[in-house]
C-alpha cells in the first residue's frame, strides 16, 4: 500500500508538468490581447509595448513557460496583471472560503444523502422509498442558482431576515460564520445529496442480495448492525468516488453560490481571471485544481481499501 501511494505521488510530477504545459499553451492561444484588455482604449501603442515588456509577454513562449515554472517551484505564482497583487496572496485569501464551503457542502451531502439512500434501499417500493426517490428527483432537477436565490428570497419575504454578509472567519465569530455558510452549502449540497442518495440506494439494493448479507440475517444479527456495518460499508465505494469528484469540482469554486451569497471564493476569482485574460492567475488556479484532483483521487483509492479490505493495490 505504501509503495502504491509513493508511486502515485511520483506520478504527480509528469501529470502536473503536462497540465502546466497545456494550461500555459491554451491561455496563450485564446484570442484577446491581455495588454489591450488591461490598458483599455486609452492605451497608446507605446504603452501596450511597455506593458508587454514589463510583464515578460514579449519574450518567446518557452522562456515565459520556464520562467513561470521556476517560480512555481519557489511557490511564487506571479502577480495579477490587473490587481498587481501576488496571486499567492489572492489564493491564500480565497482558498479558506472555498474550502469551508466545500467541507460544509460535503457534510450536508453525506448527512442527507446516505441515510436517505439507505432507507430507500432497505425499504424498496414502500412509501418511504417513493418519497425519498421523488425528493431526490427534485433535488437533482432544481438548478442550484435557483435554489440559492430562493434561500435568500424566502426568509427575506417570510421572516424579514437575510444572512449577514461580510465574511468573517470561523475562528473570529464561529456563529456568524456558520450562518453565512450554511445557506450556500445547502444550495450546493442538496443537489449533490440527491445524487448520492440514488447511488447509495442502488448500491444498498445490490449488496443486500449478496450471500454474506443473507448469512448475516440467518445468524440473527440485528438489522441495524447488518445495514450499517456490513451493507453500507460495501455500498459506499461508488459514493466515495462521487464525493471525491465533488470535492475536486468544488475546490475550483462554486461560482453561482459565491455570487449569490457574496463569498469571495475561488469560483468568482477564476471566472474574473479567465475573462480578463489574467494568464498567471488562471495558470495557478488550474495547477491548484489539478493537484487537488490528484490528491483527492489518491485519498479515494486509499479509502476504498478501508471499505473493502479485499482490495489490494499492486
Amino acid at each position, binding site marked *: 500500500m505504501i509503495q502504491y501511494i509513493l508511486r502515485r505521488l511520483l506520478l504527480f510530477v509528469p501529470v502536473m508538468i503536462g497540465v502546466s504545459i497545456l494550461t500555459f499553451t491554451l491561455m496563450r492561444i*485564446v*484570442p*484577446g*490581447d*491581455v495588454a*489591450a*484588455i*488591461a*490598458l*483599455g*482604449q*486609452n*492605451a*497608446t501603442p507605446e*504603452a501596450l509595448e511597455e*506593458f508587454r515588456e514589463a510583464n515578460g509577454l514579449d519574450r518567446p513562449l518557452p522562456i515565459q513557460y520556464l520562467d513561470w515554472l521556476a517560480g512555481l517551484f519557489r511557490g511564487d505564482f506571479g502577480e495579477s496583471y*490587473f*490587481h*498587481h*497583487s501576488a496571486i499567492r496572496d*489572492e489564493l491564500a*485569501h*480565497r482558498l479558506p472560503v472555498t474550502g469551508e464551503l466545500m467541507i460544509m457542502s460535503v457534510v450536508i451531502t453525506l448527512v442527507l444523502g446516505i441515510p436517505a439512500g439507505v432507507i430507500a434501499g432497505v425499504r424498496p417500493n414502500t412509501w418511504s422509498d417513493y418519497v425519498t426517490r421523488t425528493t431526490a428527483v427534485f433535488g437533482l432537477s432544481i438548478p442550484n442558482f435557483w435554489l440559492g*436565490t430562493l434561500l*435568500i*428570497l424566502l426568509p*427575506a419575504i417570510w421572516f*424579514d*431576515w*437575510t444572512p*449577514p*454578509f*461580510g*465574511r468573517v472567519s470561523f475562528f473570529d465569530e464561529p456563529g456568524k460564520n456558520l450562518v453565512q455558510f450554511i445557506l450556500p452549502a445547502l444550495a450546493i449540497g442538496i443537489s449533490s445529496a440527491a445524487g448520492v442518495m440514488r447511488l447509495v440506494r442502488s448500491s444498498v439494493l445490490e449488496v443486500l442480495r449478496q450471500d454474506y448479507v443473507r448469512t448475516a440475517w440467518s445468524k440473527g444479527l440485528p438489522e441495524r448492525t447488518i445495514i450499517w456495518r456490513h451493507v453500507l460499508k460495501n455500498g459506499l465505494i461508488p459514493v466515495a468516488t462521487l464525493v471525491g469528484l465533488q470535492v475536486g469540482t468544488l475546490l475550483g469554486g462554486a461560482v453561482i453560490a459565491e*455570487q*449569490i*451569497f*457574496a463569498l*469571495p471564493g475561488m469560483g*468568482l*476569482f477564476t471566472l*474574473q481571471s479567465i*475573462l*480578463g*485574460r489574467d494568464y498567471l492567475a488562471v495558470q495557478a488556479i488550474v495547477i491548484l485544481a489539478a493537484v487537488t484532483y490528484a490528491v483527492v483521487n489518491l485519498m479515494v483509492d486509499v479509502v476504498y481499501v478501508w471499505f473493502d479490505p479485499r482490495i489490494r493495490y499492486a
Partner: protein
Amino acid sequence: MRPAGYWRELGSRRLSRRRMLKVGAVAGLGAASLSLAACGGGQEEELETTETPAVELTPQPGGRAQLGISVDPGSLDPNLSVVSGFLSCRIHNPLHAINMDTQELVPLVAEALEQPDETTFIWRLRRGVRFQNVDPTYGREVNAEDVVYSFDRLKAGPTLNDRKLLTRYSEGYEATDNYTFRLRTNRNYSPALDQTGNFSYCVVPREAVEKWGDLSTRAAGCGAWILDDYVRGERVRLRKNPDYYRAGRPFPDEEEWLIIPDTGSLWQTFRTGRLDYSNVNVDKFKRDEVKNDPSIAVVESPSLYTINCYIRVDRPPFSDDRVREALDIAIDRDDYITKLYFGEGKYNGPVPWPLEYWALPQDELRSTLAYDPEKAKQLLSAAGYGDGLELQAPVPNIGDCPQVATIVADHYRKVGANLKIELKDLGVYLSQYLYASEFDITFFLNLPYMEPDMPLRSYYSQGQNADKNPGMSNDPQVDSLIEGLWEIFDREERRKAVLDVQRVLLKKHGPLYPLCSPEGYVGYSSRIKGIQEGTGVVGWLGISYWLEQS
C-alpha cells in the same frame, strides 16, 4: 486599471446625483427641500414629491453606516482607476469639484481658483489641509508639489481616466510656491475646469505611492475618510478623518461598504434592514414592494453608464447618409425603454440625459429621434437596400448589451434590415472588434464622464487617443464644432453651444446612435439624513449625510 472587470461592473454603477423622490410616509428628510431649492422647474414636477415644508435638521455625529454595493471597485487609486470615484473621493480630494446641479465650483483642497487669462489656471491651496494621520504621511500638510506629483502620475498613466488635458492640451504645470499651483494650457480649453474637478485629479502623497507602489488597496489621502481596510470582493471599511479640513465633517464615525455582487441578494439584504444604502436600481416593482415601509426612502439616481450604439461610417452601408438616417429612426426608443427599463427611461442625445445641464431637452430629442419605420424603409430603398440589408454586429456578453442588441435587431427586422448578432467574450470583443473598429454596428457601454467634452470628443471626433473614434468618422466640420466649444468659458454660453453642436450631430445620424438611459433610483434607510448637498464628486465626498441616532 482593470478594464475587463470594469466593463462588467458598469451596469450597476450609479452617478451620485440625488433628488428626493418621496415614496411612503418618510418625513423630515431635509435634503428634499435642499434639492428642490437647487434645481429648477421641469423635472421636479414629474416627481412624486410630497409637500413637505423645509425642515431645519441638525446633523448628529456618530454611528456606523453599512452600505451595500454590487460592484467591487477593484482599485481605490483615484489617478489610475476609473471605477472607484465614489469611494476614492472619500479618501482623497481634488483641488475643486463642480456641483453638477448648480454648475458651481466647490473649492476643496484649493480655496480659490483664478484664471488671469484663458490659458492659465491658478489654484491657491487651502492652508491647513493635511494628509491623514496614518503611515506614511502622518498628517503632513498638503502642498503644491503634491499637486504636481498627482498630475504627473495621472499623466503618466496608464489609465482609462480621461487625461487629455495633461497629455495633449497642457503647456505645463508647476508649483509656483508652497500653496500655489499653476496650469497652463497650450490652447483655449474650457473643459479644463470640469476635468480638473474630476476624481482622477485627486491629490495623492508621493510617499504613499513610493511605499506601496500604488493606492489600489491602501491609502493615505486628504479626504474626509480614512481607509481602514479594503478586502477585494468583500468590503471597504472607512473611518472618520478627525483632521479633515472641513471641521466637524464627516458626521458618522465609520462606513462599511459590503460588496454583494448579486443584486437580488443585495436588495433583500437592504430591504430587511441590514444595510443603510444599496446601489441596486429600485425599479417600479421594488418601489411597490417598499412603498409602505417607512424605514426606506427611495431617491432618484440616474446612471451615466448607458449603452451606446456605434456604427462604422467610413464604409458601406453606413457611409451612405440615407442608411444612417434610416437605421437611426428605425429604432423604436419608446419600445426600448419599455422592454429594458419597464417604461422608466428617457432619450439620450449625444450627451446623455443624466448630465442634465448639458443635455438636450426630452421633447426635442423625442421629436428629432421619433420612430418612423415607413420613412426608414423608403430611405433604405432609395439607398438600394429595398430587398434587405445584412449587418454584422459583434456584441460583448456583458451587462445589457445582448438585450439591447436583440431589441434593436427586432426593430430593424421591421424595416428589412437583418442584424446578425455575434456574441463575443469580452476580452476578444475589446481587442479584436471595438478597439480595432471591426464592426458594421455594435453595442457597448460608454466610459464615465461628468462633462460634455468627453462624450462629444470621444465618440464623434478625436476619440480616446485623439486618433480615431470607434465609428471611424472623420468629419472636419464636427471636429471644428467640438473644438470650438473649447473656446467658450462662460458656462451658460458654453451650454447653449453644446446644445447646438448636439443638434448638428443628431442630424448627421452617426457615428453613434444615442439610445436611452433608465431613470434610476436607489434606496436609503430612513436613518440616513441630509443626503448629498451636491452631485458628482461633491456627492461622493461623503461629508453631508448623518445617521439619525435613536
